[in-house]
């Protein structure tokens, strides 16, 4: 990739237009249809406040978004402002396609203390700041209210569950109660037929591990890397045990939806699996709230905490940022837009719509209230974020890891490879890709 000129930002007032005196059109790229309406509304207000700037939103789905953005970066015609994700950020940072916001933040004295430091820290490299937090997400246990009721359980019964590598603990015990075969026999009753299950206790699906075994790994004291930007260490016993546990849930305990159904990228999303009554609960991210809300009848679902493991509780905690393209022709206007997008006013409007948890911590209650009004308690995600968390691994080998993990873990879940072999293989290949 050609070295890209980093455009020096010009000075600070917000009213005098630094361009050719005309109106500047900024391109802003995103991938989530659900978040577009509230964002669009807020951007109209931004345009009113800045008559010299027009914003054009470019929306494409997750997969399309990244292939398009990378082609545009090669063609040096990327959008001025765009959403960035941790798995792509290291590559972008290295290729110099992101604007360093540190001098701009200093010059406009932007207060960044409102963002959760755990979110903001990952986007800083050698004193450079490559993005400001837009939102965050953690993993929770979504449950179908009907399935719980049929099993004689209450949502409270899902709190405080524990798992361990030897017998599965109270977590597996509860999932057994929620697993029903075609004759109506539950997995903890005599005569249960594991070959003819109608409803499983749990559904899992994660292309990388973010929504399944990474959480168990954290709860089992495993570290995915020796340090941020460091080497992968998923072949350690604590990590292999977590991978083994996910395989056991499917193949040993028969309480989780088989991999033949859920393996990504072709399996149906988990809101569908639960919506169709094929699973009672699902481990999934807070970004899926609106999907579950659509797939299940009103008041038909809730969210419980993940179980605790041998070393305690924990969840993967991740967030997106808004970033500025280093090749933008309108650095000043792009910075104005970014300031708006990461401001309290804008993030409050998006949180009120129940789209995503906001990057500014003090607005979390706004999002929780929006869901409470719909009868769904989402505070578990927040509790998870405030507890023991693990960030998305920061690595230059994300591409390699993602491709290998998808292929190899799918085999483990199908029972075609052992957890130990898979961990070693992915570890070696991902480490080989680190320069």
């Amino acid at each position, binding site marked *: 990739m050609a070295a890209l000129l980093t455009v020096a930002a010009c000075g600070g007032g917000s009213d005098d237009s630094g361009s050719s005196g005309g109106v500047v059109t900024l391109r802003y790229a995103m991938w989530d249809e659900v978040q577009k309406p509230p964002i669009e509304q807020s951007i109209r207000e931004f345009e009113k406040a800045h008559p010299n700037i027009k914003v054009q939103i470019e929306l494409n789905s997750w997969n399309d978004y990244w292939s398009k953005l990378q082609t545009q970066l090669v063609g040096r015609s990327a959008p001025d402002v765009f959403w960035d994700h941790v798995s792509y950020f290291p590559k972008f940072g290295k290729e110099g396609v992101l604007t360093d916001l540190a001098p701009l933040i200093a010059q406009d004295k932007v207060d960044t203390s409102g963002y959760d430091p755990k979110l903001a820290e990952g986007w800083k490299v050698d004193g450079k700041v490559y993005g400001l937090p837009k939102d965050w997400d953690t993993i929770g246990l979504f449950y179908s209210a009907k399935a719980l009721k049929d099993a004689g359980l209450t949502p409270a019964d899902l709190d405080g569950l524990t798992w361990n590598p030897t017998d599965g603990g109270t977590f597996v015990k509860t999932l057994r109660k929620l697993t029903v075969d075609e004759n109506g026999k539950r997995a903890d009753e005599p005569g249960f037929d594991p070959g003819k299950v109608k409803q499983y206790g749990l559904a899992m699906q994660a292309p990388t591990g973010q929504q399944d075994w990474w959480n168990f790994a954290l709860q089992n004291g495993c570290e995915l890397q020796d340090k941020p930007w460091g080497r992968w260490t998923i072949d350690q016993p604590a990590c292999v045990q977590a991978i083994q546990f996910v395989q056991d849930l499917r193949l040993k305990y028969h309480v989780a939806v088989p991999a033949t159904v859920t393996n990504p990228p072709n399996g149906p999303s988990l809101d569908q699996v639960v919506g169709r009554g094929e699973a009672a609960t699902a481990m999934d991210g807070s970004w899926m709230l609106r999907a579950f809300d*659509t797939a299940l009848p009103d008041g038909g679902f809730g969210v419980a905490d993940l179980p605790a493991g041998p070393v305690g509780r924990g969840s993967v905690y991740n967030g997106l940022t808004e970033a500025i393209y280093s090749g933008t022709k309108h650095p000043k206007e792009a910075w104005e837009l970014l300031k708006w997008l990461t401001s309290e006013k804008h993030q409050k409007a998006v949180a009120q719509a129940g789209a995503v948890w906001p990057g500014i911590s003090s607005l979390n209650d706004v999002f929780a209230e929006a869901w409470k009004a719909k009868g769904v308690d989402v505070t578990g995600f927040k509790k998870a974020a405030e507890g023991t968390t693990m960030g998305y691994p920061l690595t230059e080998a994300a591409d390699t890891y993602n491709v290998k993990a998808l292929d190899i873990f799918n085999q483990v879940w199908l029972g075609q490879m052992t957890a130990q072999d898979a961990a070693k293989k992915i570890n070696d290949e991902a480490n080989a890709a680190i320069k």
Partner: protein
Amino acid sequence: MKRTQLKRTQLKRSALYLALLMGAAVAVAPYLMTLNSALKEPSRVLTTPAWEPAFPATLGNFAKVWSEYDMAGFLLHSLVYAGAVTIGQVVFSTMAAYAFGRMSFPGRDALFWGYLATMMVPQIVTLVPLFLIMRELGLIDTYLGLILPTAFGTPYGIFLVRQYFRTIPRDLESAARIDGGGTWTVLTRVVLPLSRPILATLATITFITTWNTLLWPLIITNGDAVRVVTLGISALKGQYSSQYHLILAAAALALLPLVVIFLLFQRHIVRSIALTGLK
């Protein structure tokens, strides 16, 4: 004796038709399923089996897709894109096919096979260079940028028409030439009237392929002003929550123009496969 034979033919016939019926059912099933699911209430799309009839049926999904997304715009843009490419392809493929099939000039065959060989190169390889060319021409986010790469004929189209032209007896052309017709006259007055079936086939295939293209429009267009229907539907499949009731309604809407095109041309398509040059 006779009767058993008759019976046997009947049995064979029945078996054949049964097999054909099953084939047809497999081919049509996904479309019917799309339509059926698009008519269901959002909460029932995923909670009921796909084959369960949409009852009570609702047009709500269509109304929502139509009002919340610029479906009318997407369909119009796709129509302009596919229409322009189809007209271009039929015109230029015909000319090129005649030159390659019936005229002699030095290097004709080498050129033809060389051009045909470009079919072996996956589109993804030429994607970035093509994108860079369009950027230099200032055609990003324009109809021209969308249309140009495929409007001047494709190896596939030219090959298809050329093979058909070669089945038309030379005597017909010679007769026209003796009567004093030039190349242009021969092509428009003799060859083309005989080639209606294959041109209809080419037009249909081109229209449908272009209508369904996702990759090139994704890369070359950015804004809503030239957004085509495939991109519109793809964007509905957000990373995080796929709103299937809307996607299915949108897909059903996108399907309609193709059904119309096929019904218009289907007679010709069947004939182009069934007949050659002379009766």
